[in-house]
């Protein structure tokens, strides 16, 4: 243990990447850390194994040959067996542990091809590693390692990609005051039962955006990172369930976001997360059918989105009933968020249907509109 892990928790609180790494290890999803050389990826992973009490086998992929992962052929009688190397035997005997594949991106393409089965199926030659073995890899981005290769798309698709960023302040704190130990989340027994929920969410999203079910990257540069495929969506669902079960509270959201984006790639991941948030907003048609049921979202921008949606729904089909219902909704929101409601009120005021009586709620907005200089006398 030479270099201390600067990416780890300094005095400035936790690091979502480390938490995400912990969740992925706990969920036994293969994970890959991308980061510049010398930033403590290797030490962090070893420290994490130590903290979890797991044996850690480090295999530097770039100095290995394909036969080290596919098994060395040995003639026994008239058969050829593929003998696993010693590190695989040790992990199999321990029954659990952490297989750490370092320098993944400097491994030549042939070695990367041999790694495919190891990463996903934990098969080394004729030996299958126990399910309890977690696979973690680390790599330098190809533009930072002179002899680096881009990860092949099939290998990239088997891993959850996390970006290892170093916080200069955490480095300063760590150098001065020592490095904090990594936090390993403990997943409660039976956490897998919630996986069915997150799978349902993913499935619902893919109904809306079928194009994202499988979208192999078109250029070579993005092929080496996460991209959406049935396998990675399944991985994302599993990771979401694990992140929820690990329960980081508010911070857990950041961790969950990193995991989802790491599995399916930034583009698809962000769309999925945005869709999840949108799903939490009330349906404007339901609100207009029953205005009393409206609950104003707490966050200002969400409240704005909800009220703007209601006003837009009324403006699209302004019947007197819907118009009045819209004002009732705004009346409910006026006390908590007069400014947000007033923006929607201006939209409603412009689409008054013929024969609709002026609602009582309109008076609620007069003071704030006048103060903002928006009310003509």
């Amino acid at each position, binding site marked *: 243990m030479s270099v201390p892990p600067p990416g780890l928790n300094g005095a400035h609180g936790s690091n979502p990447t480390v938490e995400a790494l912990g969740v992925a290890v706990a969920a036994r999803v293969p994970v890959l850390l991308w980061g510049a050389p010398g930033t403590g990826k290797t030490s962090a992973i070893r420290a994490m194994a130590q903290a979890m009490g797991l044996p850690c086998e480090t295999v530097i992929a770039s100095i290995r040959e394909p036969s080290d992962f596919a098994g060395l*052929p040995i003639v026994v009688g008239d058969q050829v067996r593929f003998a696993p190397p010693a590190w695989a035997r040790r992990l199999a005997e321990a029954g659990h542990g952490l297989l750490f594949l370092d320098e993944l991106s400097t491994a030549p393409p042939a070695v990367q091809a041999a790694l495919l089965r190891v990463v996903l199926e934990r098969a080394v030659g004729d030996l299958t590693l126990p399910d309890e073995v977690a696979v973690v890899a680390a790599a330098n981005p190809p*533009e930072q390692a002179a002899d680096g290769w881009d990860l092949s798309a099939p290998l990239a698709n088997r891993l959850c990609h996390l970006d290892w960023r170093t916080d200069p302040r955490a480095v300063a704190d760590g150098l001065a005051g020592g490095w904090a130990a990594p936090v390993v989340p403990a997943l409660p027994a039976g956490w897998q039962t919630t996986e069915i929920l997150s799978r349902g969410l993913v499935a619902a999203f893919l109904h809306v955006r079928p194009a994202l079910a499988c979208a192999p990257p078109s250029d070579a540069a993005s092929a080496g990172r996460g991209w959406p495929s049935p396998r990675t969506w399944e991985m994302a669902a599993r990771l979401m369930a694990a992140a929820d079960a690990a329960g980081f509270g508010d911070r857990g959201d950041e961790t969950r976001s990193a995991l989802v984006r790491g599995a399916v790639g930034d583009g698809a991941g962000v769309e999925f997360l945005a869709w999840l948030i949108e799903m939490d907003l009330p349906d404007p048609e339901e609100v207009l059918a029953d205005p009393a049921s409206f609950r104003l979202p707490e966050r200002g921008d969400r409240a704005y989105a909800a009220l703007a949606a209601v006003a837009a729904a009324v403006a699209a089909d302004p019947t007197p009933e819907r118009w009045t219902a819209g004002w009732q909704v705004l009346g409910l929101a006026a006390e908590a968020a007069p400014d947000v409601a007033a923006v929607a009120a201006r939209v409603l005021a412009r689409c008054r249907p013929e024969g609709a009586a002026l609602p009582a709620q309109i008076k609620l907005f007069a003071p704030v509109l006048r103060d903002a200089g928006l009310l003509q006398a």
Partner: protein
Amino acid sequence: MADRGIENLASSRLWAATRFPYLASGVFGAQVIAEPDSGTVSVDQNWRLRADPELTAAWTPAQLGSVLIHHVCHLLRTHGERAQVAGVGDDEARTWVRAADAEINDDLVPAGLDLPGRPVLPQDLGADDGLLAEQYFEGIRGDRRPPAAGAEGGAWGDSRVRSGQSESGETAGPWLDCGSGADGMPRPGERPGGLAGWQADLLRRQVAQDVIAHAKQAGTVPAGLLRWAEEILHPKVDWRRLLAAELRRAVAQVAGAVDYSYRRPSRRSAVAGDVVLPALRRPVPEVAVVCDTSGSMSEDLLAMVLAEVEGLLRALGLARQVRVLACDTAVAPAQRVTSARQVQLIGGGGTDMGAGLSAAVALRPRPAVTVVLTDGYTPWPPQAPKGTRVVVGLLGAGAPDAPPWARAVRVEPD
């Protein structure tokens, strides 16, 4: 007095959301907290605004609304993170904030931002409008001279409004701190909470979508903000990265095609008894670069891309295997060049890259990878040339597409 909320907050936000409807999500997404005796309005990187109620009480709703918009723009444009990337030290933070202010104000002040005091504009920094904070910062970095009167003073200008001096006041007021959201330096007393990074990212995208939608519905959006939104929604990928990846991939595929060889036994054969193991063999591919030298090519751009290609090949250990062909309608003899400057644009009007490709394939030893650098205004052969992988660099904005059998990278001058 101490626990008084912020007067006019609702009407200020309403003013801001009405005047700048495309920024409404951002304005309402920022949480405003009253912090008496802070003497300023500041913002942290988690979208929390701390305002001194005593200071803001003197402002009109339009002024407070403008300050809100200004601070939201600090957050939208991630000035805090960018300050860290730009390597802004503690002592340079104020200079950075002035540069960041200029980036925001240069198109929002003309659009109707009504900031109290005199806003920092690019002219104050001796620069043109429409640049990025990094560019403004480079211009004034290390400039130790005291700034021009009136330009000192933070986000929205100086604090003369507060101290009651008129516009003629030559003395700059005390520094009004914009907060960590503008310079990335954490302030004492900042607590965790607020919007998490990924939530802020989503909010940023939402605002960017609003901006684009507003511009499409015949609304007017300041050009700088529109550029920002385009960049958020369609980030431009550096062509150098794409070109590097395509080249590495082409070379890797050639090298990977004949990975194992029985010509040489494996050094591990000793343990395998009678089984002959293949050794890992990595042939070194030859590379040819075909340069379009017709009159329509930009010499500077070609030299830049050629230098990039050479650097990449050197990093892959292939510098000696490179041959460069200059080609318009006829092909000049292959030249082994050692520097991009040695390639001369001798061609005239016409272009035929098909001739260049056939000349490349005819070279011995045959190149396994052929890089074509062209502006795209050329006929192409209908099929891929045999025995070589083709990577096409399309130079210049608006170049026509490359044929489907080639891997293409668009190179646009930055």
